[in-house]
């Protein structure tokens, strides 16, 4: 089945430093979604990327979808303690409409 690799598994940063998590698939994706899960909470949708090479921004968060639609990244500029949590990518392929495969997530901790 479809596999999605997400790295790194953990990232610890000092407040104010940047953070990036990467998501890679061996197959071409129809879209990719990013979710954030706060400690003790449930995953919450952040954004969906559909087009090849697409870049979207949400304040300090920048999301990119690769040209080949096989990889994606989430970059946070100048992290804050409120950014703490686990970030998941979820990939949908053209052959599994409606069903997404989640990466294992990157857990971000921020030291004040």
């Amino acid at each position, binding site marked *: *089945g479809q596999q999605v690799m*997400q790295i790194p598994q953990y990232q610890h940063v000092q407040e104010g430093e940047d953070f990036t998590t990467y998501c890679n698939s061996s197959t071409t994706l*129809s*879209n990719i*979604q990013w*979710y954030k899960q706060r400690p003790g*909470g*449930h*995953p*919450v*949708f952040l954004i*969906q990327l559909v087009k090849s090479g697409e870049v979207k921004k949400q304040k300090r968060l920048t999301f990119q979808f690769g040209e080949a639609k096989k990889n994606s990244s989430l970059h946070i500029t100048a992290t804050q303690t409120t950014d703490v949590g686990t970030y*998941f990518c*979820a990939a*949908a392929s053209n052959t599994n*409409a*409606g*069903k*997404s*495969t*989640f*990466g*294992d*997530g990157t857990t971000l901790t921020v030291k004040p």
Partner: protein
Amino acid sequence: DAGITQSPRYKITETGRQVTLMCHQTWSHSYMFWYRQDLGHGLRLIYYSAAADITDKGEVPDGYVVSRSKTENFPLTLESATRSQTSVYFCASSEGGSPLHFGNGTRLTVT
């Protein structure tokens, strides 16, 4: 999200017992999903449903049963609970390809 609710929030059961986790959504989304979340494994899909009376296996379906007689409900049953099924279970709904809306989760402990 207020539109999808899971119950119970916490459940402790013994090995071998049957337990059912409930999931209800008010959006009339076609798709519903059950995931389990364990440390080091992220979110793993157990079962999903594309519509009422249509269900399909996910990545880790063994030991679980689902049904979807109504669009809004998607209960998950552990027929004979095992310790390896101790986990946090999340229900989610969506319209195919659109973002998933997750419930608050059920933390299940099997002793």
